[in-house]
């Protein structure tokens, strides 16, 4: 029996600057994972934190990480060739099989695009299995849009709608919240939606889509909680009898709604 608490050692093979605050780390060895799953990443001495896998395969995986906390700030200071610890993959992953033969709407905000990138890459590989595919992606500023380098490639397979809250020089696209763009996808008839982003964004985007006639059962959200063990034991990510780490992080909307623990909580996801 292998010990699920012991990380395996991985090496940073490449570091790609995505935005001023986000870097993609390419690490080896990789692992086989489902889009939407996450790993627990250890920076030895600093601690462990969960991160969605943003790409890769058994040979190497990519983790796109914003510097916000103790572990991530240290990680950002690390160099190619240094080592980290990895546990996982954990979590359930996006229900890709449900998308086959249907429209797919991908909605992302900010760093929320990271767990959806493997979905986009899957779409590009399996384009014929799907009908309409649209990516709606918003960020605070144009310079904070992730994976810009991939957009041209992705555009070959899907419709991409971008928006920013604060335009910068040279920005010709939309300005405003993601929700605004959601209103433009009326032509979808039988769509599955995968969504990840800040809680407020997910809340309003879901609401807009449901108003447009999207079925709540077809809306999948990726949630974030304080996952310490990653395997459903430590209790930190548990809500309403479910564990984000084990039963999620991806939940259909009505399940995800339970995570707010009811309205007066007004602190949590989708509040």
């Amino acid at each position, binding site marked *: 029996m292998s010990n699920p608490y012991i990380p395996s050692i991985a090496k940073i093979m490449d570091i790609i600057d995505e935005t001023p605050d986000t870097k993609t780390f390419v690490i080896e060895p990789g692992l086989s994972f489902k889009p939407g799953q996450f790993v627990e990443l250890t920076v030895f001495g600093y601690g*462990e934190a969960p991160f969605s896998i943003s790409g890769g395969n058994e040979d190497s995986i990519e983790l796109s990480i914003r510097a916000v906390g103790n572990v*991530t700030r240290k990680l950002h200071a690390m160099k190619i060739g240094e080592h980290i*610890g990895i546990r996982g993959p954990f979590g359930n992953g996006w229900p890709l099989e449900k998308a086959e033969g249907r429209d797919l709407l991908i909605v992302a905000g900010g760093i929320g695009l990271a767990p959806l990138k493997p979905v986009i890459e899957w779409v590009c590989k399996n384009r014929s299995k799907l009908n309409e595919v649209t990516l709606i992606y918003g960020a605070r500023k144009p310079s904070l849009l992730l994976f810009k380098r991939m957009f041209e490639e992705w555009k070959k397979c899907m419709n991409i709608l971008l928006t920013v809250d604060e335009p910068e020089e040279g920005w010709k696209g939309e300005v405003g919240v993601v929700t605004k763009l959601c209103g433009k996808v009326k032509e979808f008839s039988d769509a599955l939606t995968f969504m990840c982003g800040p809680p407020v964004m997910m809340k309003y985007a879901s609401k807009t889509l449901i108003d447009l006639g999207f079925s709540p059962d077809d809306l999948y959200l990726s949630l974030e909680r304080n996952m310490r063990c990653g395997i459903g*034991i430590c209790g930190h990510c548990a809500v309403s009898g479910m564990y984000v780490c084990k039963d999620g992080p991806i939940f259909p909307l009505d399940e995800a709604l339970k995570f707010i623990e*009811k309205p007066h909580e007004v602190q949590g996801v989708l509040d």
Partner: protein
Amino acid sequence: MDTFVKIAKSKLKDFLQHIMENYTLYAPVKKKISRFERIEDPSQICLLPNRTEISLKPIFLPPKESLFRWKKVEDGYIIEDCLNGKEKKVIFGAKGCDVASLKILDLYMMEVSDPYYASRRKDTIIIGITCEYPRESCFCTAFGGMIPDEYDLWLTDIGDYYFVDIGSERGKELVSMELFERASPEDEERKREKIERAEQEIRKMAKIELEEYQDMEDKFEDKIWEELGDICLSCGRCNLICPTCHCFDVRDITNLDGSAGERIRVWDSCHLFEFAKTSAENFRRDRRARVRYRIYDKFVFSVKRYKLYACVGCGRCIDSCHAGIDIRDVLRRLIR
């Protein structure tokens, strides 16, 4: 098992001595507080008339434990697992609530096997004993009574003898010794009476009966959470003392220059401010929400997930709460 046996009180010491030859023995001792400890000599054991102040939990899930140690080397890190070898254990003298709590802990800790817990828990032999008279805070009868479903041997004081119920093959092997005698129907009757009397006493005090899996979810917005939130100290004692609470925090400790370190886990409490905090937000900032979470986790969410109440009615949280929050009162309000 159809035969019942008994053991003379005077022979109990010999029995325990015998156990200690093949197993490590854990039994209640009373120092400043009463708890289960590893026994070196049977005379250390203090069989209390009711539950110990500290539950069985720390034997299997210690308050603090190292998960692994690591050291930086030329090309990466070397990791040393802190998982220890197994120890053949016998727990002697546990009361019904504590034995019942193990079943619940097992569910939480071993749905995905926790190797540290599992290695300590596996093959542990349980020899329980009936409460003589309950504590004021006891309410195990709300969850089915004083005798748990699973045990290896169960002792009940019937005067000069302990009546012994056999609950497993392993238990049966243990009583094959000459120290045990066949019990008579009268002995069994006395045992039954004894248990009934004690249970009645608990019922009288506890005044709470829970039906199987009562729905309390509609009390989410009840005023009670505000009342409790005002008085709760968020000290976390109820969590730590609870035999079924199992949440833990994971921390990394290093030497001064960060070249070596260890990862430990420490019991955590869902009452603490930072328990549900992520890098982005704190999901249970409000004290009311934290108080409610503990109750819901034990009586609503556990039912959803495992079809059981994650409480055994030991009443330790009642005794330990400075603010005087009595989980029985809370439940009475919720099932009303």
